C-alpha cells in the first residue's frame, strides 16, 4: 500500500530543511537521511506501479483540482521514471555514505537530496510551470554540487553549466509565457487540448523555445557543452546522478513536450537527426579523451543520443526501446561512474593513463567497471543489448538504415574506447605509487545493486518491459494522459 505520493516530494524537502539542525546534533547521522528518504521514495514508486499502470494516479495539491491547482500526474511514464530516479538516487545515496568526506558534507547530502527530489518532481508534476520550478531545483543543486569540491576545475565546470543552464531556463520561461498567453492555462493536459486552437506559428515557437531549453538538460547536441565538464569535475556520485537522474528528467520533459503537449510531426525528425548527431559527435569526442570521467561523460551523451533517436521514431516500439535504453543507461552509467570514482581516487589521478594495472590492485572495482563497460556496449546477456536492439530494430523498420548504420558505427567507436580503458585496467603494470586502501562496503553494495539489476534485466528483459509498455503507450496515445488529468477536475 502506498502513501500519498506527494510525500515523495514533500518529505525530501522537509528532510532537507531539517538537515542543518540535525547536523548540529550529529554529523554522522546526516548521511543516512538521503538513504532513508530516497529509500522511501523507492518504496513509494514500486508500490505505485500496479496502480499507475492501470490508470494514471492523479494527486491533487492544495485541494484544487486541475487545472486550477497544481497536480501530480503519476502515469506509467512518470512512475517508471520516478522509479529510475529513486533507484539511482538510492544507490548513489548508499554510495555517498562513505564517499564524501569533503566538508561541509551535511550540505552535500542536502543538495543531493534536493537534486533527487527536484528530478522526481519534474517527472511527476502535471503542471508546466511547476515542471520549470523543479527543473530549477534540480539544476541549481547540480550547479552547487558540480563545484562542491571547490577545486579549480569544479568551479570552472560549474560556471559553464550555470551559464548554459540559465539560458535554458530563460528559453523555457519564454516558451511557458507564450503558452500561457495563448492557452491561458499551465496544466499540461489542458494545454495539450487547447493548443489545437492556437495559431501554429506561435505554438511552434513555443515548442522550439522549450525544446532548446530542455534539450540542454537532455544533452542534445549542440546544447551539451556543459555536460562533459560538469560530469567529469563534479564529485563522482554526482556525475553518476547526472547520468542517472538529471538527464533522465530532461529527456522526460522533452518527451512529454513533443508527444503529449504538442502535436507537431516534423519535430520528430529533428529529434531523430539531433539524436544521431549527438551520438556521433559524442562518441568521436569520447575516444580522444584523456580523463576517465570525461570519457564517461561523452559516452553518456552518446547514449542519450540513442535515446533521442528512439524518441524521434515516434512509434510505440521505438519509444519502448528509448525508455528501456534510459532505464539501462540509468543503471549502467552510474555503475561506471561509481567504480570510476574509486579508480580515480585510488590511482590519484583523473587521467586514463594513470589507471594502469588497477585490475590487479582493485580487482572488484575493476570488475564493476568492466561489467559496466560491457553492459553499455550492449553485449548480451546484459541489459544494454536489448534496448539497443529494439531501438535499432525500430530504426531500420522505419527505413532509417543510414541512421542505424551510423549508430552502429558509434557503437564500434564506443567499444574501442571502453575496451582501451578496460585493457589498461587489466593489462598494464600498476604504478608503484598506487595506494592500497579498501573500498568501503557501502560503495560495493551500491555497485552490486546496479550490476545485479543490469544482469537480471538482461536475462529477463520482460521484467522491465512490462512496465515500459504502458509508459510508451501513454506517450504515443496522449488521450490517456489528458483524459485522466481532466477527468480528475470534474
Amino acid at each position, binding site marked *: 500500500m502506498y502513501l500519498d505520493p506527494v510525500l515523495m516530494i514533500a518529505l525530501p524537502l522537509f528532510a532537507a530543511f531539517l538537515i542543518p539542525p540535525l547536523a548540529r546534533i550529529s554529523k554522522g547521522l546526516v548521511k543516512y537521511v538521503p538513504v532513508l528518504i530516497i529509500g522511501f521514495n523507492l518504496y513509494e514508486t514500486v508500490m505505485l506501479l500496479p496502480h499507475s499502470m492501470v490508470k494514471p494516479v492523479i494527486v491533487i495539491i492544495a485541494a484544487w483540482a486541475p487545472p486550477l491547482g497544481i497536480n501530480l500526474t503519476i502515469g506509467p511514464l512518470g512512475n517508471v521514471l520516478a522509479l529510475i530516479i529513486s533507484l539511482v538516487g538510492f544507490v548513489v545515496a548508499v554510495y555517498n555514505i562513505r564517499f564524501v568526506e569533503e566538508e561541509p558534507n551535511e550540505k552535500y547530502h542536502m543538495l543531493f537530496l534536493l537534486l533527487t527530489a527536484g528530478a522526481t518532481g519534474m517527472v511527476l508534476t502535471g503542471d508546466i510551470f511547476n515542471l520549470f520550478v523543479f527543473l530549477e531545483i534540480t539544476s541549481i543543486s547540480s550547479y552547487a554540487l558540480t563545484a562542491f569540491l571547490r577545486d579549480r576545475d569544479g568551479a*570552472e565546470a560549474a*560556471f*559553464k553549466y550555470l*551559464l*548554459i543552464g540559465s*539560458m535554458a531556463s530563460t528559453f523555457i520561461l519564454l516558451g511557458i509565457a507564450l503558452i500561457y498567453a495563448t492557452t491561458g492555462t499551465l496544466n499540461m493536459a489542458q494545454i495539450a487540448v487547447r493548443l489545437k486552437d492556437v495559431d*501554429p506559428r506561435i505554438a*511552434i*515557437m513555443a*515548442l*522550439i*523555445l522549450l*525544446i*532548446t531549453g530542455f534539450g540542454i538538460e537532455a544533452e542534445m547536441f*549542440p*546544447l551539451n*557543452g*556543459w555536460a*562533459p*565538464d560538469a560530469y567529469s569535475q563534479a564529485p563522482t556520485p554526482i556525475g553518476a546522478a547526472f547520468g542517472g537522474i538529471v538527464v533522465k528528467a530532461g529527456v522526460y520533459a522533452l518527451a512529454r513536450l513533443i508527444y503529449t503537449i504538442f502535436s*507537431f*510531426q*516534423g*519535430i520528430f*525528425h*529533428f529529434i531523430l537527426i539531433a539524436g544521431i548527431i549527438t551520438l556521433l*559527435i559524442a562518441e*568521436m*569526442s569520447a575516444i*580522444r579523451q584523456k580523463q576517465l570521467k570525461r570519457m564517461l561523460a561523452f559516452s553518456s551523451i552518446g547514449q542519450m543520443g540513442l535515446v533521442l533517436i528512439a524518441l524521434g521514431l515516434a512509434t510505440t516500439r521505438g519509444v519502448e526501446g528509448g525508455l528501456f535504453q534510459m532505464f539501462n543507461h540509468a543503471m549502467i552509467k552510474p555503475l561506471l561512474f561509481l567504480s570510476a570514482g574509486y579508480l580515480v581516487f585510488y590511482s590519484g589521478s583523473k587521467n586514463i593513463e594513470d589507471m594502469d594495472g588497477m*585490475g590487479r590492485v582493485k580487482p572488484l572495482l575493476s570488475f564493476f567497471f568492466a561489467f559496466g563497460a560491457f553492459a553499455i556496449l*550492449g*553485449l*548480451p*546477456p546484459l541489459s544494454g*543489448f*536489448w534496448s539497443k*536492439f529494439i531501438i*535499432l*530494430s525500430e530504426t*531500420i*523498420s*522505419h*527505413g532509417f*538504415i543510414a541512421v*542505424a*548504420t551510423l549508430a*552502429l558505427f558509434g557503437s*564500434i*567507436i564506443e*567499444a*574501442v574506447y571502453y*575496451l582501451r580503458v578496460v*585493457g589498461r585496467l587489466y*593489462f*598494464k*603494470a600498476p604504478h608503484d605509487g598506487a595506494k592500497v586502501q579498501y573500498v568501503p562496503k557501502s560503495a560495493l553494495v551500491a555497485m552490486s545493486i546496479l550490476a545485479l539489476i543490469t544482469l537480471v534485466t538482461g536475462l529477463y*528483459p*520482460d521484467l522491465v*518491459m512490462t512496465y515500459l509498455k504502458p509508459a510508451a503507450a501513454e506517450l504515443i496515445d496522449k488521450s490517456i494522459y489528458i483524459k485522466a488529468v481532466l477527468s480528475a477536475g470534474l
Partner: protein
Amino acid sequence: METIPFILSILFGAAVLAYLVGKFNYILKVGVSIVGLIWAGWLFLGLQGTLSSFTFKMLGFDIIWRINPLSWLFGMIIFGLAILTAIFSGSYMKGKERVDFYCFAMCITVASMFGIVVSGDLLSFFFFWEIMTWSSFLMVIYYRYEAQAAGLRYFVMSMIGAYAMLTALLIVYAQLGSFLFDVLSAGWSGFSLTLQIWLFVLFVIGFAVKAAMMPLHTWAPDAYTISPAPFTALFSGALSKMGIYGLALLFFVFGAGKLASSVITIQGVSLPGYILAWFGAITALLATFKAIVQDDAKKLLAYSSIGQLGYIILGFSLSSSMGVTAGLYQAVNHSIFKGMLFLAVGAVFYRTGTRKLSEMGGLITRMPYTFFVVLLGIITVAGMPPLSGFTGKWLIYEALIEKHLIFLAVVAFGASTAAFLYLYRIIFTIFLGQRPKRFDEVKEVPWMMRAPMLILALLTVYLGFYPYQLLDLINQAQVYMGIAPFDLSHSMLFNSYGNVSTITVMNIVAVVFFIVFILFNTLYKRSRKVGLKDIHTSGEVPGEEINLHYAVDFYQPFARGVSIFLKRSVSKIYASLADNLEGLFDVMRYVYTGNGQTYALFVVIALAFLFLVKDFLV
C-alpha cells in the same frame, strides 16, 4: 525439463559455479567445468535425430531453440572439442593465475556456441553470437600484458561483423516481422533483388569475420596467438566454425541459395557464390603464404587455420551437393586436426615456454607423443592419404572440377601444395634437427594433456580409414538443408568423375609399411644409435657454439620469391584507416572548445537554426 534449455543452463551454471568455487580449490573449478561440459555433451549426444525444440516469447519476439541434423553436426564439433580442450586445460592451466576466470569464459564460450547452433531464430542467434564474441574476447585477453592490442582488434572486427549481421537481420525483421528462420526462408524469395544482394553481403560480412575470411581476417593471427593454447584449439576448431555454420544457414536455410536462380550464374555457380568462392580461394592461398614465413608456431597455425577456413568457404559457396559435402566434411575435419595441432603446440609451449620456432628443435626424443600427434596432424592438414584430410581435399577438388572451375581449382591446389612448406617447417623446427642444450631436460606432458591430443589423432586415422559414417551424418544435414546428399552407396568416395576407396588406400599403406618394416628390421641387425652431433661435417668436429640447426628464416628463398604478396598487408591498411579516423575524431573533438561562452553561442546558434527551419518542424 526441456533438454535444450537444460543444457544451456548446465553450461552457464558450470561457468558461474566454476568462477565461484574457483576461489577455493583448483581441482574443483576445473572439475566443475569439465563435468559440466561432459554432462551437457552427453545430453546433447542423445538429441541426435530428434527434432527437439523449445519456443518462448521474449520482449514480444518469438524465440525458438531447436535441433536439426545440421546443428547437431556443429554441436558435436563444439562439444567434442570443448570437452577435450577442457581436459587438456585441466593440466595445462595448473599453476596459472586466474584459472577460475579461464574456466568461466571457457564455459560461457561453449554455452554461447551451443546457443548459436540451436537457435532457430535470428534474435537468439545474434544474442548468442555476441556472447560468444565477448567471452572469446575475454579469452584472447587472458594473458594480460601482451594481449591488449590483439584483443581490441579482435573485438572491433567482431563488432563490425556482428553489426553488419545485425543490420541484415533487422532489415529482415522489418520486412517480415519475424526473426524465425522458417519465416525467413519462406520469405527470402519475396525480397527484391537489390535487397537480396544487400542482405547477402551483410550476412556474409558478419559470418566472414568469424570465419576469418580475407580481407576480414586481420584479427585472427594475433588473437589466436595470444589466447591460451587450449582455448586456441577451441577458438580455431569450433568458434571459427560458427562463421561457417552461419554461411551454411545463409545459403541453405535462409534461402540465399535461391539467389542463384535470379542472377547471372558462372558455370553453374551463382554470381555471389562465385565471388565468395574466389574470396575463399584467395584466402586459402595468401594465408598459406603468410603462414610459411611465420616464426611463431601459433601464428603459423593461425594463418594455416585461416587458409583452411578459406577452403571451407570455397566449398560452401559452390552450393553444389559435392561442394557442401566438402565444406561440411572439411569443417569437421579442420576442427579435429587444428584442435590437435594447437593442443600439441600448446603442450610444447607448456614444457619449453616458447613458441618461437627458431628457438626450438630436436624435441622428438623428449616429447614423442606430442611429436606423433603433430606428425599425424600435419599429414592430415596436407590432405595426404591415408588420413582423414585427404577426403576433404578430394571432395573439394571433385566439386571444383565437376563445375569446371579451373582457376579456382588451381588456386586451391596451389594453396594446398604451399601448405606442405609450413607443415614441414612446424614439425621440423620443433621436433627434428638439433636440440638446444636448454631443452635437454624437457619432459613429455602429463597424460591429462596427452590423452585429448591422442584421441584427436586417432580420430584422424579412423576417419582416414572410414569417413563414411561422418559423411552419412553430413548427408543428413544436407537433406535438412535441401541439398542432394553425397552418394555413399559404393562405400567409397565416389562421383561421376572419379572414385577413391579410402579403405583400400589405408590397407595398402598399412600392409606395405609393415612388410617393409618387418623385412627391414628382421633382416638387419639393430642400427647403431649415434648422437645428433655425430654428423657429416667434412671431418670437422662441431663445437657447442656452432649452430647446426637450420631454423631461422627457414623459407627465406620462398619469402624472396613471393615478396610481392607478403609486402602488402590488409592490416596495415586498416591501421592507417584507424589512424585517419582518430585524426578525424580529434578534429571533431574541438567542437568542445572548453570555453563556456562558445557553448552558450552554440545554444544561440541552435535556437536560431531552429527558428529558421521552424516551418519544417510543424
